[in-house]
């Protein structure tokens, strides 16, 4: 195949179908949340203080699927991982890919998602509240500004 044909092929390739894109987006955004937790815990002293003595394994996942990401918090050491943990202390479970996609892209709110059953949790309620508080800080200080273009 000539170089021109190869280039034409390259630019003519269509993107994946909507479902595949959504699924990949959700997986990547799950990981983004968890790596944000890891990096901010290491670098932001206020967050680090607020997260003190919060040893947990916290996981996002899709219901009945192996799509997820989790963060292991143990003392001062926090590590983000792809995939599913076998024994998390708190799991936020999305009913399906659309529920996760809607919330991760801010087309849905957590309140609505919880009330209407698109999001549920397994684990201890205090862990959920504390994680919610920390996630709120992450979002306001680091994640939302990424989207606010000048």
């Amino acid at each position, binding site marked *: 195949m000539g170089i021109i044909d190869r280039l034409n092929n390259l630019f003519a390739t269509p993107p994946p179908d909507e479902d595949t894109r959504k699924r990949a987006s959700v997986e*990547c955004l799950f990981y983004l949340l968890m790596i944000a937790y890891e990096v901010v815990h290491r670098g932001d002293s206020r967050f680090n203080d607020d997260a003190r003595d919060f040893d947990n394994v916290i996981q996002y996942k899709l219901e009945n699927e192996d799509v997820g990401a989790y963060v292991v918090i143990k003392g001062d050491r926090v590590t983000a991982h792809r995939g599913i943990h076998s024994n998390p202390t708190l799991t936020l479970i999305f009913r399906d890919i659309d529920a996760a996609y809607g919330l991760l892209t801010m087309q849905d709110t957590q309140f609505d998602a919880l009330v209407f059953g698109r999001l549920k949790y397994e684990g201890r309620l205090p862990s959920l509240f504390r994680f919610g508080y920390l*996630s709120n800080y992450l979002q306001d200080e680091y994640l939302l500004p990424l989207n606010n273009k000048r």
Partner: protein
Amino acid sequence: MGKKIISVEILLYAICNTLSEIAKVDERVRRIIENWDTEIQFKVQPDGPSAYLQIERGRIIFYKGEINNPDLKMTFSSAEKAYDFFTRRSLLPLFGIAFKNIRHPILFLQTLRLLLFAGEYLSPSKGIVSAGS
């Protein structure tokens, strides 16, 4: 540690992870990397984060840290420049990076395309993120 450098570290790792994921499902990415046996280094100076991609046999593997003698080096001279580039506020940092990789123009351009594709997955509509808060 400043907020910008923390944000850059989050973005760098998220983008590298995204590239490794979408190489499995996005034909556009697969076609670009199908015959590559390549290592691409990202680094933020002076003391910022670094990560590299090992691309071979149609797979992209992401590692934190640095590697010796990568084929392409995308080095940002400051966290601010990396932040502006990763958040698409400025393309100016690219000129310096392009100049330093002048011997690999195709690899450089294709890497930029890969980064654009990764961006499609990380900010698919209104963007990131409200889960858990």
